[in-house]
């Protein structure tokens, strides 16, 4: 495992703080997910229910059912999949699973080229910016993970090409990243999740910090 120093924004302190980006999702991350993320999600969902918000509402967390232990068990030992995690003050703040091998680009300008596909990306529930959530403790967890995905794409020789299907709640984030929205397909995720893709140009702009 390699750890890289990154920075998050500590909202309470109003200052940047040091954190670590790990190129793996280890047992420590899964324990944090199980015993810290899950209870926090349950608490948040209870608050939603108390406010009359149910599963059909757009405010309902769309990743609430994600089972990170199961997701990592699915790909354990496979060279084509890799996990990344962000740790700050010894607590996991975000996780991402990438597919390096089995997806191809769709944009006309790069159709058929290899890319890094973001299988899953999630930040810890106490960092969510949602209408009924408390103010996020740390910001920039998502951008740090996206930076890692694009960097990995460059390192693999994919020139920053990246693809992903976005949960509806995350669409504004990927639009801000400068990715192209290719829309939904009826044969993918019940036609509910739009597909986004980055080009080398969009990736370079992202890495340079030229976010919209």
């Amino acid at each position, binding site marked *: 495992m390699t750890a890289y120093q990154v920075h998050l924004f500590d909202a309470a302190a109003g200052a940047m703080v040091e954190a670590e980006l790990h190129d793996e999702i280890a047992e420590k991350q899964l324990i944090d997910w199980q015993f810290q993320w899950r209870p926090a999600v349950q608490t948040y969902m209870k608050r939603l229910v108390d406010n009359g918000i149910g599963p059909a509402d757009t405010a309902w967390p769309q990743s609430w059912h994600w089972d990170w232990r199961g997701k990592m068990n699915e790909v354990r030992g*496979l*060279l*084509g999949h890799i996990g990344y995690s962000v740790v700050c003050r010894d607590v996991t703040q975000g996780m991402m699973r990438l597919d390096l*091998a*089995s997806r191809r680009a769709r944009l006309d300008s790069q159709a*058929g*080229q290899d890319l890094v596909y973001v299988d899953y990306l999630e930040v810890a529930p106490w960092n969510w910016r949602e209408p009924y959530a408390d103010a996020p403790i740390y910001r920039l967890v998502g951008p740090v993970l996206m930076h890692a995905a694009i960097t990995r794409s460059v390192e693999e*020789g994919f020139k920053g090409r990246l693809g992903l299907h976005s949960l509806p709640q995350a669409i504004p984030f990927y639009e801000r990243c400068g990715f192209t929205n290719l829309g939904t397909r009826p044969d993918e995720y019940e036609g509910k999740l739009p597909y986004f893709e980055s080009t080398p140009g969009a990736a370079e702009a992202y890495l340079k910090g030229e976010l919209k």
Partner: protein
Amino acid sequence: MSKRTMTLNLTDAEMGVLENLCAKKDLSKIGVIRQALRLYQMVDVRLERGDKLFFEDDKTKDKSEVMML
């Protein structure tokens, strides 16, 4: 991540295929070989699980099974 070096001897035909894939995929030789290894491992693991490997025609939706014996 530590890396190890090896020498790979290929026939002219194999090298030709590798170079064509490099050009087509806009990847280096090592990039193509890494992708091939990842995919080969993924297919092997899925087949060992009992899954089948199919190609599907995007337009007609016709499926043809790739027999890996």
